[in-house]
């Protein structure tokens, strides 16, 4: 089955992973800007990173027939340094015209601090000003519920924001409903220990339906599985869900979200019927 991984950090993965993803049916990935495992010391460090995810990774992915999209921002963890964050935010428009950029992300909260909230709001304002779609990271573990609710509170201050162009990512059982009820997309991240498992993601599809739901691997430099989305496909099939229902979550939904970005060009394997597979 063709599928999309709408959240994966390929800068942290080896080229063999691209090959494995291609073998499993991956037609596109999207890569939000994130914390690289260490704090960068200057806005120029971010400029180099933005070049990597707007120029280098698309070339690497194309070698395996995979379309590569990206999102730009300063992540919540490094947003604690507000001065640096503002320098990075000022640099982001330099890259917004890159053809693979889908929007602003993954902005959000990490430890639910004042500085994180300040930088989050300034990046939402940036997205609104440039008419960009938004991908939002929600915190980990005990911070998730409070942080998610805080994010939704802050977004409510932007009544003109098109909720259908915003993803609340890393939802779990206790945060999915408020995200969907408010009209946002909800992303389920399949991780080995934290966040969701493939089985729990299936549970959430059974409880909430397929509309505006996404699944992703958030594969990065830590414990994570680039093959997590195919794991979800297998788990859904084992429960007897239809191919159409599965494809809705792993292919149709992410591409529908991406299409709400004004620069969006469909993945070659979707745009060209000769390249499509049906198995």
């Amino acid at each position, binding site marked *: 089955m063709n599928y999309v991984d709408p959240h994966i950090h390929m800068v942290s993965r080896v080229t063999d992973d691209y090959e494995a993803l291609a073998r499993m049916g991956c037609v596109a990935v999207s890569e939000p800007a994130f914390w690289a495992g260490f704090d960068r010391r200057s806005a120029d460090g971010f400029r180099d990173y933005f070049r990597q995810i707007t120029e280098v990774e698309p070339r690497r992915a194309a070698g395996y027939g995979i379309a590569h999209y990206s999102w730009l921002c300063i992540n919540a963890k490094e947003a604690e340094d507000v001065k640096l964050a503002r320098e990075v935010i000022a640099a982001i428009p330099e890259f917004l015209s890159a053809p693979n950029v889908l929007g602003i992300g993954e902005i959000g909260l990490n430890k639910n601090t*004042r500085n994180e909230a*300040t930088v989050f709001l300034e990046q939402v304002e940036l997205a609104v000003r440039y008419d960009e779609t938004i991908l939002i990271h929600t915190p980990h573990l*005990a*911070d998730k*519920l*409070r942080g998610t609710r*805080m994010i939704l509170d802050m977004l409510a201050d932007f009544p003109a924001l098109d909720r259908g162009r915003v993803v609340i990512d890393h939802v779990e059982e206790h945060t999915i409903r408020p995200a969907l009820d408010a009209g946002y997309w909800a992303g389920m991240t399949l991780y080995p220990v934290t966040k969701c498992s493939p089985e729990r993601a299936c549970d959430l599809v059974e409880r909430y339906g397929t509309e505006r739901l996404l699944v992703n691997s958030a594969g990065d430099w830590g414990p994570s599985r680039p093959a997590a989305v195919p794991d979800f496909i297998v788990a859904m099939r084992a*429960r007897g869900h239809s191919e159409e229902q599965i494809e809705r979550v792993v292919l149709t939904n992410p591409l529908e979200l991406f299409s709400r970005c004004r620069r969006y060009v469909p993945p070659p394997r979707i745009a060209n019927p000769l390249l499509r597979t049906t198995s």
Partner: protein
Amino acid sequence: MTRVLSDQRFLTIRSLVVELSAALDRVERHAAEESVHLDSDRRWRLLAEAVARLAAGPGRVDAAQELFSDAYDPAWRRTGGPELSGSPGCCGR
């Protein structure tokens, strides 16, 4: 198709229960060997409460997620949370 309680699903859940039981026994055994009082550890108390809730019926996973979560105060921007106290007007619009 493995809906309801198939053999495959039974074995999976059985394995999870056995692993959970072994993990809790392991922690208690090591704590005893090192004279650590687990009851004074909030994390252990949370685990114990979560396990106790397993017998409560449907809604277990939502209850567990809530249990392991920090409280949300809808008035956080006005009252401030642990990290936000003393910052009136922060994030305010």
